[in-house]
């Protein structure tokens, strides 16, 4: 059996190894993705984003249970930040999801950002394809803890859930561009804490200001509270899932799904093109040691980054 066939047959360790080789930009890993790609396109992709500690992993955990109850297979890609100093990372999202560890219908893979600043990791595009080809019905993307501008998840997910908590800033924050614009659903988590109704009102006013909502979808604002009462919390997450399903149905009915797929395909082609053109050049410069002398020329002002890039382009792209 080829690697791709084994992965499709359910070899989770091999799937995880492939994702790792993709993270490491191993050229052979791209070959496997080529083989898997014809089997992709069936999974629904959800994106969960929000500040650190907002509750992304916990809500992911409950959503997994909810989708599993309907018999769907669930894949999770959970991203945590890479240290800018050591290159290491603590990937701790599984802590909240361990009750699914023994469920063969759930596959959870943690990824480190490795320098990506958009809230995801560079390998996520391909990792989604891997999970899709493995037959996951639902793929949940959990971003790193985000602030205002990490919006990459919108390019990978069919539905984006933005998880907010009370107590962060005034109404002007809801008017700002960036992450507040990408939500298909707003969740106010920890809504039993002070300030939740104020946040709810602020979001309502923000949504009321919109001239029109994309495809007529006004993002709902849902409250989640009393995590200590597991049953009550589960019921609230059921409500979230109903809204997600409603949104997905709208995507299907309105051809927004098609538009989003086109946007994603365009971006991925661009990313892949940059990787196949640039990565080999940079690798060669690093390996030959030429990179150091180029860097030195910039540092001692004997040249500049643009002139050097032009020279390299002329040399490599003939």
């Amino acid at each position, binding site marked *: 059996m080829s690697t791709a066939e084994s992965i499709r047959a359910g070899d989770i360790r091999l799937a995880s190894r492939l994702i790792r080789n993709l993270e490491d930009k191993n050229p052979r890993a791209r070959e496997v993705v080529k083989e898997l790609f014809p089997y992709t396109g069936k999974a629904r992709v959800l994106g969960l984003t929000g500040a650190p500690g907002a509750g992304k992993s916990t809500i992911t955990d409950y959503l997994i249970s909810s989708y599993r109850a309907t018999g769907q297979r669930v894949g999770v890609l959970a991203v945590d930040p890479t240290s800018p100093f050591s290159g290491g990372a603590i990937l701790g999202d*599984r802590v909240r999801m361990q009750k699914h560890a023994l469920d063969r219908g759930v596959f*959870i893979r943690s990824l480190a950002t490795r320098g990506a600043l958009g809230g995801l990791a560079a390998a996520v595009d391909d990792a989604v394809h891997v999970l899709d080809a493995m037959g996951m019905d639902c793929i949940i993307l959990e971003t790193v803890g985000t602030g205002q501008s990490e919006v990459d998840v919108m390019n990978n997910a069919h539905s984006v859930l933005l998880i907010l908590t009370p107590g962060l800033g005034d109404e002007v924050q809801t008017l700002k561009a960036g992450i507040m614009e990408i939500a298909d659903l707003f969740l106010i988590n920890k809504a039993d804490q002070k300030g939740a109704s104020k946040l709810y009102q602020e979001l309502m006013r923000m949504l009321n200001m919109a001239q029109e909502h994309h495809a007529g979808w006004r993002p709902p604002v849902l409250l989640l509270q009393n995590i200590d009462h597991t049953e009550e919390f589960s019921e609230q997450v059921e409500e979230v899932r109903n809204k997600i399903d409603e949104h997905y149905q709208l995507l299907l009915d309105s051809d927004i799904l098609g538009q989003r797929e086109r946007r994603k395909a365009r971006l991925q082609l661009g990313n892949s093109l940059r990787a196949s053109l640039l990565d080999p050049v940079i690798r060669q410069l690093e390996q030959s040691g030429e990179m150091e002398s180029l860097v030195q020329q910039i540092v001692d002002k004997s040249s500049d980054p643009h002139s050097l890039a032009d020279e390299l382009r002329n040399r490599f792209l003939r």
Partner: protein
Amino acid sequence: MAQKNLRVMVAKPGLDGHDRGARVLARSFRDAGYEVIYTGCHQTPEQIVEAALQEDVDLIGLSCLSGAHKHLFPRVVRLLEERDAGDIPVIGGGIIPDKDISYLYEQGIREVFTPGTHIQTIVDWIENNVASREAL
């Protein structure tokens, strides 16, 4: 800083909730440049092994302060073997009496680090003994 690009799992099997040591290690491995999968307390060996496969780790570090290490550590090694993943090395630490250490070696635990071990000693051991997984 470490030279290797490793994925290392730090897990606490069994019922004890004393995770300070595990957290210190996770943090130190992060600072050594490893990607650390941290799963938290109260894990069964089954959960640990399943997570290790899903995360494609190069090493599993187990921490146990409850006294159940003689049961739990070997169980992780056995389950890995059953899943054709006996190549993943398992190391352990915590409150491990000296007299138990040779038993753990016999059971396939590759190394045991007891309280007072310098963190650099553990990182050095990993650098010398753990290989990053082969590419596909």
